[in-house]
């Protein structure tokens, strides 16, 4: 398992992406899956920066675990901010016109749709969000 700890700031999101991509590339992850994971990282990290710590800056811990058989990756995002369950929000109405559209909730919705599993728990003062994606044949 690989672990990265960064300050939860928007400008650190590319560091997280690079860190995860290193593990994915070593596994020969297909480019499309890699990009879906990169999008998920962007959505989850930006949520942590905006909602978990508000005006303050805290830490985010990212763990990457890969399995070979079947080929899959589990990425865990941990922060010590206010309890925030992104999975609780209702799915956005994706049938509305441009004028009626709200952007809120789209990011989490995209993560739910593109990953195989998304799990949230709050434990010992920490938000723990785990995403799983398999890409074996």
């Amino acid at each position, binding site marked *: 398992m690989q672990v990265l700890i960064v300050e939860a700031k928007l*400008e650190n999101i590319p560091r997280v992406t690079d860190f995860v991509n290193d593990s994915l590339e070593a596994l020969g992850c297909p480019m499309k899956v890699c990009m879906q994971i990169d999008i998920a990282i962007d959505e989850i990290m930006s949520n942590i920066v905006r909602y978990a710590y508000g005006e303050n800056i805290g830490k985010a811990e990212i763990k990457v675990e890969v399995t070979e058989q079947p080929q899959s990756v589990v990425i865990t995002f941990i922060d010590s901010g206010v309890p925030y369950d992104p999975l609780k929000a209702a799915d956005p109405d994706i*049938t509305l016109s*441009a004028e009626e559209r709200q952007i809120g909730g789209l990011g989490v919705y995209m993560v739910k749709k593109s990953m195989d599993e998304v799990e949230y728990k709050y434990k010992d003062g920490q938000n723990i969000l785990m995403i799983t994606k398999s890409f074996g044949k």
Partner: protein
Amino acid sequence: MNIDKKQQGTQLTISLSGRLDTTTAPQLEGELKHSINGVTDLTLDFEKLEYISSAGLRVLLAAQKVMNKQGEMVVRHVNETIMEVFEITGFSDILTIE
């Protein structure tokens, strides 16, 4: 992300390369704010764009709303990953994709 801009009269083409996400979306937002005034035909060329997250969708939606009032907006050369994002989020119904 890189932004390449070509303007001919009231036609504006913006070509993006790289990733349109939380860190880069403000660049596109700034560029559009700066140059969308008076444009009747806006083309966004995504040929070299790798992927787009919800932060990018927010900017596209804002641009589409402006262009609904003053002309047309077309998104070109969308790759498979981005097309899937558009389909999942219903943006394929909002945007004109060529």
